[in-house]
Every structure is written in C-alpha cells, then in structure tokens.
C-alpha cells in the first residue's frame, strides 16, 4: 500500500518551511538595504573556482552602496525602523529553522516536557 498522503505531507511541509525561511531572509536583506546598511560580503577565501567577486569589485560595490545610502529619501526614524524590521526578519527566520529541527527530533521533545 502506498501512502500518498505522506508524499504530499513532505511536499507541503518542506515547501512551507522553505518559503517561510527564504522569504523572511530576503525581506530582511531588503530592509537592511533600505536602512542604508547594504551588506557587502567579500568571499572568505579566494580559491581557484571563485570568480564571483574580486576585491576591486567588492570595493566598488561598497562605494556604490554608500552613495545610495546617502541619497536615501528616508528619514532617520524610518531608517531605524527598517533596520529593526530587518533584524526581526533574520531572528524569526532563525527561529523557524530551530522550530523545524525541534519538530523532527523526538529526543528533544523529552527535554522540554
């Protein structure tokens, strides 16, 4: 007997989990940018394979981001609100991951009860 419901359960739960985590993280990045703190992340180490960002490109990107932040039409209060929103998004997305892991690990359920 094939348990089709189980497959559907995997699809739906994995879809919801991924959409929640990715959306929140993206929204956090968007708000972070709006608040004038565009993240510029230089690669941790330049192996042969990495051609994604060169140090010069990263520097240029940082300059562009600073310029855009200076021109921002938002007031300081709005920027601060955006920053708080961004951080809230990151935190909630991290909590979503932790709750997801908690749900599937039966051993952890014992600790909290």
């Amino acid at each position: 007997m094939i348990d089709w419901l189980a497959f559907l359960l995997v699809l739906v739960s994995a879809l919801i989990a991924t959409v929640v985590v990715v959306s929140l993280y993206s929204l956090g990045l968007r708000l972070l940018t709006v608040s004038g703190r565009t993240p510029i992340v230089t690669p941790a180490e330049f192996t042969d394979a990495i051609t994604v960002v060169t140090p010069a490109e990263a520097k240029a990107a940082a300059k562009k981001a600073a310029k855009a932040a200076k021109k921002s039409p938002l007031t300081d209060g709005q920027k601060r609100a955006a920053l708080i929103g961004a951080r809230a998004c990151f935190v909630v997305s991290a909590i979503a991951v932790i709750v997801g892991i908690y749900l599937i690990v039966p051993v952890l359920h014992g600790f909290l009860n």
Partner: protein
Amino acid sequence: MEILLVVLVIVLALFFDFTNGFHDTANAMATPIATGALKPKVAVTIAAILNLVGAFLSTEVARTISGGIIKEGDGGILITPELIFAGLLGAIVWNMITWLLGLPSSSSHALFGGLIGATIVGFGVYAIDFSVVLSKVVLPAVLAPLTAGLIAYTATKLAYAITRRYDGKPDGRDGFRYGQIFSSSLVALAHGTNDAQKTMGVITLLLISVGLQPVGSGPEFWVVTVCAVAIALGTYVGGWRIIKTLGTGLTDIKPAQGFAAETSTAATILASTHLGFALSTTQVASGSVIGSGMGRRGSKVRWGTAGRIGVGWLLTLPSAGIVGALAAFVATFGVVGIIIDTIVAAVVVGGIFLWSRRSEVDASNVVSEVASSGRAVKIKKNPKPKKKVAP
C-alpha cells in the same frame, strides 16, 4: 566463523559509510565554498561535525531498512549474514564502477539494490516486501528530486523578487552569502540524518540476523555512534580532496540561488527522514540545483543533460542488484564462496582505484554530481530586469 563474518560485514558497512561521507561532502559544501561564503577548511569541519550530530537525530530510515524491506519474523525469512555481506559487496563494487565511469549514481540506491539482489538469490522473490520497496525507496527516489526542484524554483523566484530593485540601487543580495553559511550547514545536518542511517539499518539487520537483537527493533546506541563517526570522518577526509581540486562548474551559482537551493534541499531531506523515506541526498540536491537554476531569469533547461542524469539514477538500483545477486550466488557455497567474493571484490576495487590513478584529476572529473547537474540549466548572463512601472 560466524562471529568473524559479523565483524567482516560491520567493517564493510562502515567502509561504505565512510565512502558515502567522502563522496557527499561536496553536496553540502561545494556551493558555499564556490561563492566564497565560507573558507574551505571551516566549511569541511562544519560539514563533518554536523554529519556527526545529524546521525544521532533520527532512526526512522534505519528502521525502514532493518525492518521493512525484507520480510522477517513470523511467516517471513531470516536473512543470513552471508547475504548481507553479498549485498554490501554489490553496493560497493557498483559504486566504484560508476565512480570510475563518471556515471551519476546514488550510493543509497546501490545499497538497496545490492541487498535486494542478494535476498532474491538467497530466498526467492517472495522474501522482498515490494510494497515497502516501492513506497519507501522507489517512489521517494522519483518524487523527492521533483519535490526539491519545485520548492527550489519557488524559493529562488521569491528570493529574487523580494530583493529586486528596479532603480538600479544596490540590492543587498551579497547578504545571501551569510545565509548560505546556515543553509549549507543544514544540508550537512540533513545528510547525516538520512545517509548515516542507511548503514545503521544494515548493521542492525545483521545483528537481527544472527539473533543478537530481537526482530523489529531499532539500532543500538553503539551502532548509531560508530556510523556517525564513520560518516563524519569520511566527510572530513573527502573535503580535502574537493578543496584541492574544486572545479569551475559552480561559479554560475549566485548566492541568492544557492541559498534557496540549499534551504529546499535541507527541508526536503529532513521532512523525508522524519517519515522514514530513505532517499538519495545527491539526487535531492541535484533536483534543487536544477530547480533553482530554472527560477532565474533567462534560464533554459538542457533536457539532454538532465535526461542523462535521470537515466543514470534509474540504472543504479537494478545494476547493483545484479552485482549483489552474483555475489550472493557465490556466497551460497559457504566459507569458500565468501573468500572468493572477498578476493574478487578486493581485486575489482583495487583495480579500479589503480586504474583511476592513471588519469589526471582535474576540474572536468572532480566537480561533484550536484555541481554538474547545474549544467542542465542554461542561463543567460545578466539579462536586464523588465521595468514594471515607470516611476
């Protein structure tokens, strides 16, 4: 004699576990290394530790293998250590062959194929519970990559849509690099939960077969521990090879895309593990990479490449089954058969290893299967975003 055989099978199973970790480090860690999210050393260490942790988190998949596929107990059969030995040999030999030929394959399916083939030779077709094979192995094998691909497609679309800016100002997508540190760690954890358990299942099946454990029981704690250590060691050792020779196949994966693909892979594997589906993490990760590629603007699927990957997957289970069946047939001759099996397998594995040393390792043959599945999607360089409304 029996105790010697039990030890031999456990060693063989742990070797299989080790090669599994060795083989799959790239699945979790190639993307963050390629996009520069993590230093290679750090990435490999994290992957090894999380594989170790992941192995302790669940036992559902191990139960599927030790208690589901082969009918044991009342009205069923009692599988012998000889047959498990033959099945493992089938899986290892087939794994080595596909590795040499560069065929995409799944070590998990090689394991199932080998065990099923050996059992059929030993007891006949009726000993296999085909409904369990179908519902817990074959169907998940087909559905999981599709599920992961669909989810990754959706997530990639979302990630790009949410961060897209039409005014040309910086979009902050660099920040996905930080996110990748966590998403790739989750993939490593998920890998530990699913793949380490396959070996636990085999060792448990073995202990049940010699009467050291009651029929239908789950893996013992020491079994969980040794399997966790074996897969973590394999991951750590395998990582160094990848760092040295990481190919260029992954540079087309952007941080946003990598983040979406990894989250989708981790979510799919973790959800499946929870329900006891033994799936191939390689296939799920490949499905996600293809799906997330399709989620980018200006992408087109190379169906030929995608089709070749699919055919390789489909071949694995029956092929490993045939090798397992052959090994089981020889093993029915008793001690002599086991010795012949061991020698033949050692010669084949050693021969393949020596043969592979002859060819130079370079970017073309060392890129992980997941990375090469990225080639199934063709993406135009930087297409301009369409403006929605002129401000």
